[in-house]
C-alpha cells in the first residue's frame, strides 16, 4: 500500500516526522521555503489526512467538510477573544465543537449512502454557509469576517497581566506563533495527527471501515452494524478538519465564511484524489502539489511570461504568452480544473497509483532482465 510497508509503524512515523520538520531545508531549492506557504502545507495536510479517514476508508464522498474547517476557525478566534491568546485552549475548543457538529450532521447524513449522502452533506454545508451570512452574523461577523479587536475581554490573559498596547498575537506560553515557530508548531500537530490516522488505518476499526467500502451489505449479513463505525469515522474526520481550521486561525487570527463554501469542500476532495484516495501519504502529496502549484501559478503574470519566453523570436514569444496567459494568475483555477480532470480520467487512484505503476513496470523490466541474463548463463 505504501512505500514503508515493510517497516514498523515507529520507523514510518520517525521518517515522516523527519521529513516534515526538515521541510524548510528540502523545499528551499524549489523556492517554497517561506513560513506562510509551509504553514499552508501542514494545515491543509491535517485537513486532507482527516478527510481521507472518511472518504479513503469508507468511500463516503462528503461535500460538506469545509463546514468543520470554518467552525474550527470561528471557535478558535472566539477563544482568542474571550479567554486567552494561548493556542492550546483554542485548538481544544475547536476540535470539540466541530466534533459535536460533525456528530449531529453525521448522525442524520449517515442514514443514507451513495449520492444521497453527498447531497445531504452538501445541503448541510450550504445551510451553515448561508446562515453564517444571515442569522449568525453576531457570531460570524458576516462578510467582514471575525477578527481580534482592542477591547476584547480575554478573561484569562487580562486577569494575569495588564493588556499591552496593540493587538496581541497568538502564542504558546509566551512563544509567538508567527513565522517559523508557527510552522513548527503546526508541523508537530500534523505529525501527531498523522500518527493517529496511521493507527486508525492499521487498527481493527480501520479494517471495518475498509470492509464497509468494499461491501457494506456483506458486513451487515455477517452481523456487524455498520452505522456506528461510519458515524465515528465521520466525527473523527470532522474533528481533524476542525483542528485544521483552528490552526488556520492560529497562524492568522481571522475567520471568514468563505472558508465554508462548498467549493472549499471541493478543494479538499481534489487534494485527496490527486494524491491518492485511501493511501496514507497520498493526501499529503496532493496538498503539497496543489498548494505549491497554486502559489507558483497565481504569482505569475503576463510580464513574467514575457520574461520567461524572451529567448524566442518576438512572434513566437507573443504567441506563447497569449496561449499560456489564461492559465496563470487569476486563471489558476482553470489549470486546477484541467489537472483534476486529467487525474480522474487517466489515473483515478491519484499520483500514488502512478508511482505504483511506474514502480511495477520498473520491477518487471528488471526482473525480465535478470531472467534473460540467467538464461544466457
Amino acid at each position, binding site marked *: 500500500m505504501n512505500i514503508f510497508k515493510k517497516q514498523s509503524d515507529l520507523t514510518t512515523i520517525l521518517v515522516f516526522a523527519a521529513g516534515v520538520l526538515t521541510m524548510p531545508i528540502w523545499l528551499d531549492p524549489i523556492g517554497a521555503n517561506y513560513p506562510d506557504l509551509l504553514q499552508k502545507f501542514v494545515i491543509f495536510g491535517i485537513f486532507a489526512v482527516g478527510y481521507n479517514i472518511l472518504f479513503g476508508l469508507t*468511500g463516503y*464522498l462528503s461535500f460538506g467538510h469545509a463546514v468543520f474547517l470554518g467552525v474550527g476557525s470561528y471557535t478558535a478566534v472566539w477563544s482568542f477573544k474571550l479567554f486567552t491568546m494561548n493556542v492550546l485552549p483554542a485548538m481544544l475548543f475547536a476540535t470539540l465543537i466541530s466534533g459535536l457538529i460533525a456528530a449531529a450532521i453525521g448522525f*442524520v447524513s449517515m*442514514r*443514507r*449512502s*451513495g*449520492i*444521497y449522502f*453527498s*447531497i*445531504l452533506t*452538501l*445541503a*448541510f454545508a*450550504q*445551510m451553515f454557509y*448561508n*446562515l453564517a*451570512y*444571515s*442569522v*449568525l452574523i453576531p457570531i460570524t461577523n458576516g462578510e467582514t469576517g471575525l477578527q481580534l479587536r482592542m477591547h476584547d475581554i480575554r478573561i484569562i490573559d487580562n486577569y494575569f497581566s495588564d493588556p499591552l498596547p496593540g493587538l496581541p498575537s497568538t502564542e504558546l506560553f509566551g512563544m509567538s506563533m508567527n513565522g517559523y515557530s508557527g510552522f513548527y508548531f503546526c508541523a508537530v500537530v500534523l505529525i501527531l495527527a498523522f500518527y493517529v490516522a496511521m493507527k486508525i488505518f492499521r487498527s481493527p476499526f480501520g479494517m471495518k471501515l475498509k470492509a464497509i467500502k468494499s461491501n*457494506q451489505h456483506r458486513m451487515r449479513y455477517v452481523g456487524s452494524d455498520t452505522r456506528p463505525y461510519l458515524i465515528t469515522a465521520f466525527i473523527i474526520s470532522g474533528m481533524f478538519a476542525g483542528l485544521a481550521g483552528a490552526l488556520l486561525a492560529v497562524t492568522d487570527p481571522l475567520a471568514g465564511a468563505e472558508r465554508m463554501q*462548498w*467549493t472549499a469542500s*471541493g478543494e479538499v*476532495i481534489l487534494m485527496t*484524489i490527486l494524491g491518492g484516495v485511501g493511501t496514507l501519504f497520498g493526501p499529503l502529496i496532493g496538498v503539497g502539489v496543489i498548494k505549491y502549484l497554486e502559489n507558483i501559478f497565481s504569482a505569475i503574470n503576463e510580464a513574467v511570461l514575457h520574461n520567461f519566453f524572451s529567448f524566442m523570436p518576438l512572434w513566437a514569444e507573443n504567441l506563447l504568452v497569449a496561449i499560456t496567459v*489564461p492559465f496563470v494568475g*487569476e*486563471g489558476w*483555477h*482553470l489549470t*486546477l*480544473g*484541467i489537472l*483534476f*480532470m486529467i487525474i*480522474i*480520467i487517466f489515473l*483515478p487512484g491519484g499520483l500514488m497509483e502512478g508511482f505504483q505503476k511506474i514502480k511495477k513496470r520498473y520491477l518487471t523490466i528488471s526482473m525480465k532482465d535478470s531472467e534473460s541474463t540467467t538464461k544466457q548463463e
Partner: protein
Amino acid sequence: MDSILIQLLNGLDKGGAYALIALGLTLVFGTLGVVNFAHGALFLIGAFCAVTFQKILTISKKVLDPNITYFDAYIEQPYLELWFGETGLAVIDYAVPLSIIVTIPTMMLIGLTMERGLIRHFYKRTHAEQILVTFGLAIVLQEIIRHFFGANPIPTPAPDIVSGSAAIGTWIGLGENFVYPWWRLIYLASATVIISSVFAFLHLTTFGMVVRAGMFNRQMVAFLGINVQRKFTIIFGLAAVVAGVAGAMYAPILPPDYHMGMDFLVISFVIVVVGGMGSLRGAVAAGFLLGILQSLASMTVVSSLLPGIDQIIIYLVAVVILLTRPRGLMGRKGVMED
C-alpha cells in the same frame, strides 16, 4: 394578500429556472445513468450565449457626435444602426429573445461534444468518479467564461417594450398597486412551454417513446435492433439545449456572472433528489415547489417569525424529505438505491 401573490409569482419564476435545470439533469441521469455536475455550467453557457449575442450586435464604431459642435466629441454607434437605421436598433433591442435562435444550435453542439468527448467514457465508472470529473469540467467551463467576460455581472436588458411591469392587479381586480415585471411573466410562460414540449416530445413522438423504453429497459430496446446509444446522446444534447435556453432567458432577470452556474447547480441537484432520482415529473414538481417555498419564506412576516429561514428552507426541506421519503417525492422503485 398582494404580497403573497407576488411572492407566489416570484417563486414560480425561480421554480421555472430550477425545474428546467433539474429536468435536464434527470433526463441525463435517467438515460445515460450519469450524474452530471457540469449541468449548471450549461445553464451558465446559455446565459452567456445571450450576452455574447448582444455584444456582437452592439459592436460599435466611433463617430462624431453631431450634437456637440464646439469640439470633437465621439460617441459609440453600433454598426447595425449605421447600416440599417431604425431596424438595426430594433434588432439590438430584441437581442435576448433573438439570441435563442443562436443558443439552441450552440447548446446542441456543446452538449453532443461533451457527451461524445467525455461523458461517454464514464458510463461504467462509479457515481463518485462521474461527479468528480464533471465537477472538474464545471470548474474549467466556468473559468473559461471568467477569462473572456471578467468576474462582474453583465447587465443584459430585456426588450424595451417588456421592460416595464404588467398591471396584473387591474386584470383580476386587485387594485393598481399589484404589478409584476413583464419579462418575468414571459419567462414563466416560456418555462411552461419548454417543459410541456419536452414532455410532449417524450410522450407523443416515436423517438420519445423509444427513449422512454430505453430508460425503462435499455438492453431490451437494444435487442430490438435500435441504436439506443445514439438516441441517448441526442437526449443529452436536448438537455443541454433546455438548460441553455433557460439560461439565456434568465439573463435579463439576473445579470449573468461566472459563478451563476454553480449557484443554480447545487439547488437543482437538491431538487432532483427531492423530486426523486430519475423521475421527470418529480423534478418539475419539486422545482416549482421549492421555488415557491423559497419565495414565501423570504416574506417579512415569515422571516420575522423564523429568522434566516429563507436562506435554508430548500436544504431543510431536502433533509426532511430524504430522511422520511428516501426515494424523494415521486421516485421510482429501484433507481439509485444504495
